[in-house]
């Protein structure tokens, strides 16, 4: 696994280094991406859990199920709202799921994409608890997370054709990169 990190890091490093001459042209403040790291993926399911409601930061896809309105927090999980009265949707819980962008629900079972696989969650006890039924690794291998701006799930990343995408430079010491999240960068040193 370390090899992959190093290979990936050097790859990004090579393509991402800005020459000194160009650096003056980098904006002082610019929208970009920062890596999301994990230490270890073997206990991935431990990072899927219920929390009290959280504030919405980067709303992603939406889903309706029974009285619930579910709003994806881009790459982080699912906000659960009691939407029995659409005039006053009430936040009741948040399900933390790293690298989650999509969900689907049938008969009180939520299927959610996550890092390298599909998490299956019993949500019949919401908002008091959830029960993780299984985690199924995808059979397709995704060696690298999508590079900044290259995530077709989300179009807010706004990458003009031919423009640079800036990101926070990678620090392999922090672990394995499992994805990217939008952020505001201060005169970033790395771009693609």
């Amino acid at each position: 696994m370390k090899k992959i990190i190093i290979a990936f890091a050097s790859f990004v490093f090579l393509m991402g280094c800005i020459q000194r001459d160009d650096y003056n042209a980098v904006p002082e403040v610019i929208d970009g991406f920062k890596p999301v790291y994990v230490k270890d993926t073997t206990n991935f399911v431990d990072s899927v859990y219920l929390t009290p409601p959280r504030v919405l930061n980067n709303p992603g896809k939406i889903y309706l199920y029974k009285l619930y309105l579910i709003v994806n927090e881009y790459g982080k999980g699912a906000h659960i709202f009691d939407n029995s009265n659409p005039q006053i949707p009430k936040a009741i819980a948040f399900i933390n799921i790293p690298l989650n962008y999509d969900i689907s629900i049938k008969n009180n079972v939520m299927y959610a994409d996550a890092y390298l696989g599909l998490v299956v969650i019993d949500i019949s006890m919401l908002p008091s608890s959830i029960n993780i039924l299984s985690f199924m690794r995808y059979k397709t291998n995704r060696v690298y997370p999508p590079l900044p701006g290259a995530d077709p799930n989300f179009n807010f990343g706004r990458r003009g054709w031919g423009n640079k995408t800036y990101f926070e430079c990678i620090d392999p010491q922090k672990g394995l990169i499992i994805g990217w999240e939008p952020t505001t960068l201060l005169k970033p040193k790395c771009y693609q």
Partner: protein
Amino acid sequence: MKKYLLFFSLILLIGSCQKEGSELSSSDGGNTTGIGGSMAKFTFHKQYLYVVEKQFLQVYDVSVASKPLFLRTIDLNNTAVETIFPYGEYLFFGTQNGMLIYSLSNPSIPSYISTYSHIVSCDPVVVQGNIAYVTLSTGNQCGRGVNQLEMIDISDIYNPQLLKMYNFNNPKGLTIDGTYLYLCDGNAGLKVLDVANIYNARVLETFAGIDAFDVIKNGNILTVTGKDGVYQLDCTNPLDLKLVSKIGKN
């Protein structure tokens, strides 16, 4: 509270009359399934769950909900697949190179039928009757400066044909209900189109102030996700959308 219950049952009642493909299917042998937007990468059909992951379609049998059974991965032979939309016995995929149609005559092994190719772009597809509605937009990695809504005749499923295209600001998610098409047009807001005559589609109403990304219609409520939060709009009169609530972002 009773009022709300009544209101909600009414929504359910209206919602359950929605056409196939809208995913709100309470009548599927007592199953209850949710409704996703047009940007979704997951969908159900019968006891199967379909998950798009990059250029692959993964098929799971979820008849035992707690124990999904992975069946297979199908290579969609496309650089990147963006969205999946079930309609009748078909799956429609919005991809960077166009729209793919797969047959669900054997739902455990969806099989390729045809492709409608367009210039490289992204974004979703919805279907009603013999027409597929596809948006193409810039502002992402597959942008080529095109912002269009395309209407494609799929009456011959083996040979989809472009009928008409319209230019928009930055069209993304969409949904259709009868002759009304609800279109997220980026920072130009949510638009309601009359598509009774697809050769002369007209914008009837614009709900401005939302940088709209995707929309779900459930009864007379539109749920719209935008850059700054989630909006719910009353579309009882599609010519006069009314804000019901907004969940703002931090």
